[in-house]
């Protein structure tokens, strides 16, 4: 009835070979929480499904000289249970842990969230704020892509045929750094972001010395908002700086009008979430914990 093939690759090289041979009909299976839904709806019809979860480097977290490299298919639940990673990048982890239910968390991965290329992907604004590097392997070798350049439009990435995302690297943190991610949804859980904002800060005393801002669900791809970061850098996160950064976020929005939120609403909320995320990141630098509702 079908000519779909299932292959469990054991190495990155094998996965790349299978994807290259599939000539555009190959799909990587990480957690499958998007792919299986898309297959069932007929939105995607793979020729070859390449399961990458038997490749050790794609399902593990490695720390080296303060930088964390996250296997692209590592389940979000595993990321949340990694204490050192959560301590260094609480915003990235809270973003990944907001995707779907407990059951979805057991499967869904940050790499899959990125490759699905939804403008509303929860982990991506936090990864953009974190300055994440996407490690890509392909028939012509490896390359590294800044995460904000990875997606090119809704459902579209810069991956070429045969290329796969192997891992995501979060750089070494300077002292007194932290991050936060907030999204707005009409419910409290199990929904898709109307707006999502990730903020990463480094401070010296009460002054911001470095900042990055990622903005989701308000444009065809997740945006790196340099102007918002510039408004924060050098400030003490006073009202004037927060207002200027919020304004920069709102100005960067190019959202659609849909049932989840109007253009006007999304544009306003982008600024509101920027302010709140920045203040949570600052709290974390000052040792004040902000945790979600996950019991473990």
């Amino acid at each position, binding site marked *: *009835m*079908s*000519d*779909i*093939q*299932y292959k*469990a690759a054991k190495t990155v090289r094998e996965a790349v070979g299978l994807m290259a041979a599939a000539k555009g009909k190959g799909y990587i*299976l990480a*957690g*499958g*929480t998007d792919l*299986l*839904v898309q*297959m*069932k709806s007929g939105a995607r019809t793979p020729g070859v*499904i390449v*399961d990458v*979860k038997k490749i050790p480097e794609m399902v593990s977290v490695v720390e080296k000289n303060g930088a964390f490299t996250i296997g692209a298919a590592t*389940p979000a*639940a595993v990321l949340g249970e990694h204490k050192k990673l959560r301590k260094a990048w609480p915003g990235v982890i809270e973003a990944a842990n907001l995707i*779907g*239910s*407990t*059951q*979805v968390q*057991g*499967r869904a991965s940050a790499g899959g969230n990125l490759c699905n290329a939804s403008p509303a992907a929860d982990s991506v604004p936090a990864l953009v704020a974190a300055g994440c590097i996407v490690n890509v392997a392909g028939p012509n070798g490896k390359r590294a892509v800044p995460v904000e350049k990875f997606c090119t439009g809704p459902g579209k990435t810069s991956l070429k045929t045969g290329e796969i995302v192997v891992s995501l690297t979060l750089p070494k943190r300077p002292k007194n750094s932290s991050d936060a991610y907030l999204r707005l949804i009409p419910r409290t*859980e*199990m929904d898709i972001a109307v707006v999502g904002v990730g903020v990463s800060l480094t401070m010296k005393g009460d002054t911001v010395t470095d900042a990055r801002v990622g903005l989701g669900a308000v444009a065809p791809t997740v945006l790196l908002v340099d102007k918002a970061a510039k408004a924060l850098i050098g400030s003490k996160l006073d009202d004037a700086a927060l207002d200027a950064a919020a304004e920069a976020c709102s100005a960067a929005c190019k959202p659609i009008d849909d049932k989840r939120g109007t253009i006007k609403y999304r544009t306003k909320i982008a600024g509101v979430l920027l302010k709140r995320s920045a203040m949570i990141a600052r709290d974390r630098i000052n040792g004040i914990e902000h945790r*979600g*509702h*996950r*019991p*473990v």
Partner: protein
Amino acid sequence: MAKIHITTTINGAPTEFLCEPQQTLLDVLRDQLGLTGSKEGCGSGDCGACTVTIDGRLVCSCLVLAPEAEGAKIETIEGMADGDTLHPLQKKFIEMAALQCGICTPGFLMASKSLLERNPNPTETEVRYWLAGNLCRCTGYDKIITAVLDVAAEMRESAR
């Protein structure tokens, strides 16, 4: 197209089956292995009625391909009771009427068991968030949440 031969462990029992590449684990459990306790509600990972654990991790079996079961340890609702002795959560769900039509119940039980194994003392809010991926259209959830909290308290008491 040749079927794929899979060797796995389900509720502690070594199990083999043949499947199509795109078949879901849920379909194999129900249609081939006769394990019909796991239900198909939505088929898209939203309702949790098909919840099982794979290598100890809670997942929706409708979003797992059957070939992924190779070499894995799977637990389903059929493995929850010990022979005729119900698990404390199963007993409590009956006692407190934490179910009506029953379609969502296997998923709620699997998810609740997994929660209490990881956190024997969850708050009400934590239980509600943990179970947010299990939908029930009958009970209004309160009886389910109360049952889980009661069992947690009883299990803590008996572990003393």
